[in-house]
């Protein structure tokens, strides 16, 4: 955006990211091809909570996570992890991407895939040692996948693949977990296993932000919720925020002007 920032109307002072917040987002806007897909997000995640990110398709849920991880560029605003920049805090963040984001025919077995979560800890250009594999095995045990450690990942069911992804993030031993639709298309046993792991993480004082599709289970699985549809509709404890009005605001129709302006900003909507 090449417009000169006008300080005349600006009322904000110094941006401060609280250190207590595992993930603090200040006035963040993310755009693809100049079209904003997330508008001016302000959010401070409370520590030690299980937080659901809820919203319709195309609401920017995955983008929120990817922007927090610096995987997509932001055009304004700032993100902090435990009060610091993400690149100084990588070791404290675990990421579970969408299952469909990788090629499951890739020639690795479950244990090797989980070991990948440890690569940073092992150090770049250093070999994987036996005790690293043992750590990965422990992570597999936590998701109930120890019997499948040697199996090539394409021979696992969708739920089992998801558990491998979860184990890979667990192996990172992070303090903040960002999970992109871990419950999508999984069997009942896997859903149970993931919920158990989430509760364990919370017991250990960790925070998890989870993109979640199933509105039925939000109240059962999570403490907090973020309602997202291109903008932050509401956020806070499930009991206070997960209301019919807020859900209607999130799912019931997009803001027409927001769409129109966004489209214009791609310079295709202009005449």
């Amino acid at each position, binding site marked *: 955006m090449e417009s000169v920032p006008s300080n005349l109307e600006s009322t904000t002072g110094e941006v401060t990211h609280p250190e207590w917040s595992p993930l603090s987002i200040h006035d963040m806007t993310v755009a693809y091809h100049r079209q904003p897909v997330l508008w001016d997000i302000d959010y401070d995640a409370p520590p030690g909570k299980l937080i659901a990110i809820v919203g319709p398709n195309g609401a920017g849920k995955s983008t929120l996570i990817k922007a927090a991880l610096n995987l997509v560029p932001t055009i304004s605003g700032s993100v902090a992890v435990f009060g610091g920049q993400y690149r100084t805090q*990588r070791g404290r*963040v675990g990421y579970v991407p969408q299952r469909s984001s990788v090629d499951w025919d*890739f*020639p690795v077995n479950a244990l090797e895939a989980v070991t990948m979560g440890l690569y940073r800890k092992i150090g770049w*250009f250093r070999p994987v040692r036996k005790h690293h594999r043992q750590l990965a095995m422990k992570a597999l045990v936590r998701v109930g996948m120890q019997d499948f450690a040697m199996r090539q990942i394409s021979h696992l069911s969708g739920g089992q693949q998801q558990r491998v992804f979860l184990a890979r993030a667990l192996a990172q031993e992070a303090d903040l977990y960002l999970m992109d639709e871990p419950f999508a298309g999984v069997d009942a046993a896997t859903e149970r296993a993931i919920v158990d792991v989430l509760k364990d993480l919370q017991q250990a004082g960790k925070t998890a932000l989870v993109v979640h599709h199933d509105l039925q289970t939000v109240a059962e699985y999570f403490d907090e919720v973020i309602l997202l549809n291109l903008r932050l509709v509401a956020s806070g404890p499930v009991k206070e925020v997960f209301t019919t009005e807020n859900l209607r605001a999130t799912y019931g129709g997009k803001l027409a002007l927001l769409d129109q302006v966004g489209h214009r900003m791609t310079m295709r909507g202009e005449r």
Partner: protein
Amino acid sequence: MWTELDTWTALTAALAAMACTVPGTFLVLRRQSMLGDALSHTVLPGIVAAFLAAYWLGIVGPHSEGGSTMHFVLLGGAVAAGLLTACLTEAVQRFGRVENSAALGVIYTSLFALGLLMVRLYADDVHLDADCVLFGAVETVVLDTVGDSDVPTAAVLNGVVLILNLLLLAVCFKELRLTTFDPDLATSLGLNSTFVHYLLMAITSVTLVAAFQSVGAILVITVLVAPSVASFLLTERLHVMIALALLIAGGSAFAGHGLALWSPRAIFGNLGFTTVDDSSTAGMTAIVCGMVFVLAFLFSPRRGIIVQTVRQSLLGFRILCEDCLGILYRSEEANSRPTGTEEPFVKASVPATLRGRLACWRLSLQGFVAGTNGTWALTDSGREHAEHLIRSHRLWESYMARHFSLPDDHLHEAAHRVEHFLDVPMVDQLEQELDQPGLDPHGRLIPGRSVKEVTEANHSEGESDLHP
């Protein structure tokens, strides 16, 4: 006849092939095999530009002399061209909003054309033509040797490239694996996937140019992809895949050269054309690679066509055998019902086709049926198996009747398909979920409990809820 020169020729081809296989494997795994083909074209403008620049700067003479300096100039140009290809493709893909292969198609044809144009324009200034940079011939490598020895320069060059590639692989194995499998995770962990991608492009370009000048385009394009794809079909471990691909590439080169020596005489000599006594090593190597791929495609233990066909027909046969058991069980049931007397051996007709007879023969070998001449009856162990099958069938019908709103005549077909895939624990779970129904939706007894038990249970519970 195979002479020492042939060994050197084949060895050079093998070294070049193996060097190409290392980056080739990762291109295949990244689903970017086309990028390899594209790079093999776009290195042309790179090396022409590098050569011209070096010539105008006075670093090399007009006749491609200059020895090792020349090699470095060409390699530098190739790397630049490789990176440029990757960057431009990325840019076209992003700003043109087209898919990757379309962007690649535009970029590599344009750059290749640019290269040809440069060759044409400056061919008078310097001795440089497309033949000398792109179409090296493996047959001529023995003419250019190191010093007074018999070692071809090309063998040394490609050997060095192979060793460098293997060293890089040893050091970066973990990193290449991670960025290939899950680039987003790699980036979030602090390893820049884009950087690794460009590194791979640079390595591929260097490898390609080294191989091009010595063994030619056909061989290079073949060995960049085919050995890796074949070994991808044969194994599910990355390091095994790479080792196997190296083996296939090297082996194909030797076999290809051997075939090139032997096959023309064997084929044309017998036809009376005695003057034909040699054919292209590169072409034959490509053929051998292709044959290895076809073999892998047919016989791959997990994905092979043959294994899949056999597995399919075995499954079909199992289903047929189980259907025979089902037929016998049902006819036994039908015969015993009206009179109410138990008759252990009831004759029944199973399919009279060859497959049907085969199925009964197999069942009799297993001891599940007894009888001869087309009339078969269940044995005790056969009845046990059949009971499980019928139990699965009728429980599945009940399960569907409860959860789907379908007319009763829709249930049989579905249950008939599913019954072959339910094991004992699943059937027990079904029964539990359905609160131990005694009868299926058609009112038939579900085996596993006796008729008496069921009628008693129904009487005590009042009417059965099985008929919605």
